[in-house]
């Protein structure tokens, strides 16, 4: 520690490579959110369904996603499925693990948003001659969007940070993976990881700031 001399120049020279990695990170995060939101809606509907056979697996999914480490979820997607003969590439396993996690958290967010909107809103719409689906789309959905927007963007930030767990399943093209490789080649551990942390930080802050701005523009009531 005491004879460690900082060598930032080498780290900065690797910056373009790291930023390429950051793009992959964003790509995984965005994809995992799109997949996660789709499954979140399905899970939320299933958990509200009358059938136990729909409710039970959906509840299990949400419980595991929310109460076990994300690392475990990504491991299961890679090594767990691997032992059943289903081999996912590091990219696919990381994506699947994070999407699984996103779906669990977001389904609870969506369910909470739905519960927050009283039935009387639908009744008022139906009284004006709207069909059930139409009233849901025109009256309930926009209100759900407002309630769940910032929590969903929080999950996006969380998804971005979770991508760093990909190194444990051999992912080497995202920001964490690239950084790990650079470190292995040069042993400039502190410099590379500090730089990577700054990049994660800037992305996370930018996403949250943009979300706040968008929320302020979109939801004027």
């Amino acid at each position: 520690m005491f004879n460690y001399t900082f060598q930032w120049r080498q780290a900065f020279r690797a910056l373009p490579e790291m930023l390429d990695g950051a793009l992959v990170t964003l790509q995984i995060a965005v994809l995992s959110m799109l997949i996660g939101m789709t499954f979140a809606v399905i899970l939320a509907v299933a958990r509200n369904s009358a059938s136990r056979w729909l409710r039970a697996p959906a509840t299990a999914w949400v419980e595991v996603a929310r109460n076990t480490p994300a690392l475990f979820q990504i491991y299961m997607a890679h090594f767990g499925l691997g032992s059943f003969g289903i081999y996912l590439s590091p990219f696919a396993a990381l994506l699947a693990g994070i999407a699984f996690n996103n779906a669990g958290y977001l389904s609870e967010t969506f369910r909470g948003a739905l519960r927050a909107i009283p039935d009387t809103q639908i009744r008022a719409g139906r009284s004006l001659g709207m069909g059930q689906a139409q009233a849901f789309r025109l009256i309930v959905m926009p209100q759900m969007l407002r309630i769940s927007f910032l929590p969903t963007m929080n999950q996006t930030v969380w998804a971005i940070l979770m991508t760093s767990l990909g190194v444990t399943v051999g992912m080497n093209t995202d920001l964490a993976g690239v950084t790990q490789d650079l470190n292995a080649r040069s042993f400039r551990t502190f410099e590379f990881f500090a730089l990577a942390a700054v990049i994660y930080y800037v992305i996370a802050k930018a996403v949250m700031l943009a979300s706040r701005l968008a929320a302020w523009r979109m939801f004027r009531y």
Partner: protein
Amino acid sequence: MIEIENVHKSFGALEVLKGIDLTVEKGEVVSVIGGSGSGKSTLLTCINGLEPINTGRIVVDGTEVHAASTDLNRLRRKIGIVFQQFNAFPHLTVLENVTLALRKVLGKSRGEAEEIAARQLGHVGLGDKLKVYPGRLSGGQQQRMAIARALAMSPDYILFDEVTSALDPQLVGEVLDTLKLLAEEGMTMICVTHEMNFARDVSHRVAFFHKGVMAEIGAPDQIFGAPERPETREFLSNVR
């Protein structure tokens, strides 16, 4: 014309309407009074088909409300309803609250819908609030907006369910004035109300509900001046 014939309605084991018969003619204003839980609100939500009934019939202009073949969405366009809780759509401005169904249900253009909405909102005294969100309105203003929203669909009938009960006393007057105006214009109305003065002054007939039965119905003078049934007398002596 709304024809209600021997309507029975239960929630589970609880029978809430026990054989209601009532006919409301075009242009008539009927007030419904009665104790809490006597089935007044339930009757209104049965008339526009929000609630199913067990037996009997409700026929609106020749269409049986609860027949399987009835297009309820279409039928509801001619039966407006305003609830005790205003049910404003919080994510839409006052103007948009009114134009939503005009555009999405009646298929009117934005321009036409806004013209109708602005006229109706002016009618209830909200002409200067078009761009405001309901969260910024007082209860009385929200309720008048809900009335304008129902009126904009040009319904043939309007059902009012205790539209002043959730309001502060000083705001009740402005909403009742709106209802009076409507009655004078010849709108067909069924008003569930606790406002006895309103029921006496505005309605053609007053119906008294008691434990799921329409115990008595008649002209306001008769119901308030010379009620025949002991339940009616007791109810009226308690509210006054």
